[in-house]
């Protein structure tokens, strides 16, 4: 009856700010960034990328409570860049990696598609799923 809508777990509310940045008052070049309506999927990946960057002295994240849909990411840089800038760079690098991976997947799938289209004897789903459409040389991008 008064349960919150289930999608409040991952959809921003009207006027809700997606991030909140708090500069650290005691540590130089450090900030804590609260990212709302996101979870480990984003947090861990970003943290991992930050730790690979040379000008990052510290990067860590936490989800303070499993029922509260946000995480905090804390990072400190060596001063050559601001934490916010470094965070953006990390995300940009990840986007680059993901999109190059996407292209590689597409190439691999186009090689393998021929095999899927063959006699569908071993296929428990028959012509279900996107199977038929893929077989016809279409995919969801063609729409």
């Amino acid at each position, binding site marked *: 009856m008064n349960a919150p*809508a*289930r*999608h409040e*777990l*991952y*959809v*921003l*509310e*009207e006027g*809700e*700010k*997606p*991030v909140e940045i708090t500069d650290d008052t005691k540590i130089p070049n450090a900030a804590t960034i609260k*990212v709302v*309506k996101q979870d*480990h*999927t*984003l947090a*861990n*990946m970003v*943290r*991992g*990328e930050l730790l690979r960057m040379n000008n990052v002295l510290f990067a860590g994240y936490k989800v303070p409570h499993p029922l509260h849909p946000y995480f905090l990411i804390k990072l400190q840089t060596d001063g050559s860049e601001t934490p*916010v*800038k470094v*965070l*953006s*760079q990390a995300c*940009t690098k*990840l*986007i*680059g*990696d*993901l*999109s*190059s*991976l*996407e*292209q590689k*997947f597409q190439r*691999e*799938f186009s*090689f393998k*598609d021929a095999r*899927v289209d063959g006699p569908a004897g*071993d*296929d428990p*789903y*028959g*012509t*279900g*799923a*996107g199977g*038929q*459409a*893929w077989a016809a040389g279409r*995919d*969801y991008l*063609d*729409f």
Partner: protein
Amino acid sequence: MEPSVQVRDLKRDRVNFVLENVDLSFANSLRRVMMAEIPTVAIDIVEVEMNTTVLPDEFIVHRLGMIPLNSMNCDEALRYNRDCTCSVSCRYCAIQLVLRVSCNDNETLHVTSDHLEVVAQTSYDDEGEVGDELSKRSEEFGHPVGKGNPNHQPVLICKIRKGQELRVKCTAKKGIAKEHAKWSACSAVSFEYDPYNKLRHTSHWFEVDERAEWPLSDNAKEEEPPRENEGFDYNAVPKRFYFEVETVGSVSPQEVVLKGLRELQAKLANLILAVQSTSDMPSIEGADVPAQMAMQPPGPAWGAPVATSPNNPYASPSGGQTGAWGGGSDQWSGRGSGTSPSSNTGWNSTSPSWDSGSGAWGGASSWNI
């Protein structure tokens, strides 16, 4: 090193691949996003008109929710009900299905997913804003997976005997598995790295002989076995990840993987935009996300991919790229358009609303699964 992938096997309902030169965190995020954030269609609201079967309403309604429905290109083919401007649900944000089965023979009748019929929806006054969703649908969109295919075994909903009847109206909506597992496109995503446990990320409990009691996985063939008395390399990190993505049939495995990668990019792009507009930075040099991102159509800011044009808008294969930042903070204009509390009114009852008017047992009850 650039990330790379090798697809080892591809079937209609599964794909097996090896991901290389990526972080554990990166590989794990891909796993998580494929499991929980690929939008699909599933039955969400059921109106029980008649149920004289042996199973209670709740039982059947729950089973209906779990039936995989064809969800190809669900991203564009259906709107989130919460984002739609219609009063309850319409053809842009929902698929209507009916199930009407009665048994008149002496033999037990199996009510299966094949008995579910999609109701063609015509336009009406109360429907949401006109969109191109309908043209993005394939013919089978919203139909139970495998319906009409003689090689496919349908999902059993319940068994009825002579004189019993089941009559329900279902509303299927778009959703993601983060909200309810019935929306998961995947039945399983297996994920393995370091089959010899060289990195000692796990410890094997054993009685007498560790090697005898912990047989190696098939993926061990792909890697060098550890040498006798090899020292522990505490700097080593996992680099090869063995995936097997198994779908429920609602979406092809190719689409699951590609949509997963897209979704991650959308999350990151939205984070960049959010951080940038929050900290008053004029523009971020070196951050090369093209301007298209600033022009995303109104929609749920985090949920939906930023752009779904056929050509990846932020396809900068790891390299320098033009794209200036859209500037300004109006990128977020689309944010939050998602929650209209008025939609769903009257449907969200958490308990069955028994209709006393039409008889003790026959009254229609609506369920929010």
